[in-house]
């Protein structure tokens, strides 16, 4: 039965006696070779400290709840097998540059407010067809990349433009704007464009590409944002975006 050491960053800002951040170490025992970081955290919670706080839900890397900073990189705790980290020490910290709630839980309110601001839903003006909205495989292919976003917040936490500017929409919200802008069924371009085509929207992106590196789903928000910039020019000069 192998052992592995977990170093977890703990902090409870509400604890008056000890509000400072500190690292705690735990030995996690496991069998086989399929321990994920999330399972390691469950083990710590059960055996050592029931007060350890972290978010999780689906355990299949599709809900985006367990985005964390694991061994120096943004990862989803549920899809990170400790074996693949190839080390005896697993360090787990909350996603940096976001307000901390407790331990590994960060405040995502601002993130989701910005996401909602971009109107992340299908907007239709023409009457809907009787059966379904037909989309060709070629049209569907255009949304293949952005539609996979699970809103874990890793890109947003990693973006230097978002660190320095509270009002910057951030990569996730802008990738979602791109997702609807390229969708052949969507007709909300005119409503949405004022929200992303401004100095606190796409033009705060300086193509640093941390988001591309951080994304656990291997998406490319920078590409989406650059696409939006070109779309804005097309709208201004030609009057059409698609």
């Amino acid at each position, binding site marked *: 039965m192998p052992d592995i050491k977990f170093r977890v960053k703990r902090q409870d800002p509400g604890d008056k006696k000890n509000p400072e951040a500190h690292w705690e170490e735990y030995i996690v025992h496991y069998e086989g070779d399929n321990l994920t970081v999330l399972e390691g955290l469950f083990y710590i919670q059960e055996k050592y400290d029931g007060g350890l706080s972290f978010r999780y839900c689906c355990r299949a890397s599709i809900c985006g709840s367990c985005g964390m900073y694991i061994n120096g990189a943004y990862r989803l705790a549920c899809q990170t097998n400790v074996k693949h980290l190839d080390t005896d020490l697993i360090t787990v910290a909350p996603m940096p540059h976001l307000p901390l709630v407790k331990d590994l839980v960060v405040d995502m309110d601002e993130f989701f407010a910005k996401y909602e601001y971009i109107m992340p839903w299908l907007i239709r003006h023409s009457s809907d067809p009787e059966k379904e909205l037909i989309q060709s495989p070629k049209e569907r292919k255009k949304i293949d990349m952005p539609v996979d976003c699970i809103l874990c917040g890793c890109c947003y936490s990693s973006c230097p433009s978002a660190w320095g500017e509270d009002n910057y929409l951030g990569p996730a919200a802008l990738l979602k704007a791109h997702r609807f802008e390229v969708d052949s069924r969507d007709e909300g371009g005119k409503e949405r464009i004022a929200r992303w085509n401004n*100095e606190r929207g796409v033009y705060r992106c300086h193509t640093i590409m941390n988001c591309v590196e951080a994304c656990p789903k291997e998406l490319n928000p920078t590409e989406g944002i650059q696409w939006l910039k070109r779309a804005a020019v097309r709208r201004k000069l030609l009057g059409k975006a698609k």
Partner: protein
Amino acid sequence: MRAEVISTHRGGVWSWLFQRITAVLLIVCLAIHLIFTHILNIGELDSANVAARLANAGLTAVDIILLAAGIYHALNGLRMVLMDYWFTSRTRALTLTIVLWVVGLAFMGYGTWALWPWIS
């Protein structure tokens, strides 16, 4: 949420587009400028030599485009950097833009004035 703040920061598309256009102009005009000044026209950097080169209207035009593109590209880049930091509110950003336009136009005026004897 700061929806109101974001919606007051309109624009940005033209400065983004012109940053790219001026970048292309800089590559082309700078290449022409360097080739004609330092490779094809090797000689003393004196008034007579410069006057002979600038007698060519095409080269003077290239120099003026180079001047305009260089000033725009540099100041717009500076504006982008500064807007990441202190110039975040609409009033500050607008003030910065106006100041940079004044500075840019002053540089442009001074540069054109220096080239004027050969243009006229």
